[in-house]
């Protein structure tokens, strides 16, 4: 891992973003009775922004561990795409090194890394790993601080749980590039509400996501085929 000035310059927007998101995530985590050290450990090991926010929402909802696993797996599927795209740049590394590298791929570190690999011929995996891992430390420390501060500040629960919804709304809007995506999201939401009356263990989130995304995918594949 090679941590230098260029890495810091390129990663600065990620540090700032993760600092504020991490503080928010820690504060919300405290509402789900996560201790600061637990928030830190989760952030280092899982290192997944939206994954952790979703996990907290499900903890607050007393969801089953199985339901948390499947939902998290589905949110993380996009990492498969990132790892695949990153593969040509790390294929000459040893297996343990590439495993660690892939573990530090997030939406943001992927975007900056792939851009650096394409445009900067001096960019290598050593700097790439530093760019992936250093934001993880910022993220984990911010989670720890947010979680510790929330226990001390004791913010109103009702408002804090709504902020989690507002956060999902903001993340969701980033994916709404066309009408098909908006319709898919709304359909997923309505189906999720309906399913919540009939399926146990909070599995309605997973089921609604699977059914609606599969139908949307099938419709698009069929359209391309015609």
């Amino acid at each position: 891992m090679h941590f230098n000035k260029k890495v810091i310059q390129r990663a600065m927007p990620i540090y700032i973003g993760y600092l504020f998101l991490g503080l928010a995530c820690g504060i919300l985590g405290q509402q789900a009775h996560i201790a600061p050290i637990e928030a830190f450990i989760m952030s280092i090991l899982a290192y997944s922004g939206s994954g952790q926010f979703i996990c907290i929402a499900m903890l607050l909802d007393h969801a089953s561990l199985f339901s948390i696993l499947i939902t998290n797996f589905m949110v993380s599927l996009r990492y498969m795409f990132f790892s695949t795209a990153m593969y040509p740049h790390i294929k000459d590394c040893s297996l343990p090194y590439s495993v660690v590298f892939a573990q530090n791929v997030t939406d943001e570190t992927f975007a900056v890394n792939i851009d650096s690999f394409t445009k900067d011929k001096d960019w290598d995996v050593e700097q790439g790993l530093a760019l992936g891992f250093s934001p993880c430390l910022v993220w984990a420390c911010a989670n720890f601080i947010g979680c510790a501060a929330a226990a001390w500040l004791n913010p109103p629960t009702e408002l804090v749980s709504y902020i989690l919804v507002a956060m999902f709304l903001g993340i969701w809007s980033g994916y709404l590039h066309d009408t098909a995506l908006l319709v898919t999201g709304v359909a997923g939401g309505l189906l999720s509400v309906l399913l919540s009356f009939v399926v146990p263990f909070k599995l309605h989130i997973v089921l609604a996501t699977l059914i609606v995304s599969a139908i949307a995918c099938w419709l698009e594949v069929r359209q391309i085929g015609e």
Partner: protein
Amino acid sequence: MSDESLYIYGATLMMVIGTFSCRELPLLLLRGRKLPDWFNIWLKYIPTAIFGALIFPDIFLKNGALDFTLQNYGLWATICAFPIVYKTQSLPVALVAGTVFFCIFKYVI
């Protein structure tokens, strides 16, 4: 260790299995081969479906039942904030707009 800690560490373990498998599987199995086209199309629809599926029950349901009363502040705050959030597609805007509308419904109306 308390039941609550056990639950949280269990959830952490699930998170690790979920994220780790997605990040590492392409390296170990695909060894650089391309993902099939249908998989990429499917991938495009998962985030929007998952966030819809998370948000709607949160705002429409209270204690497991539909709630369209004015006391369901989150529902009305979301309906008011959505056009702004949709237009700007910005996370900070969503946080500010959502919080402001929530407080208006809770403390003013």
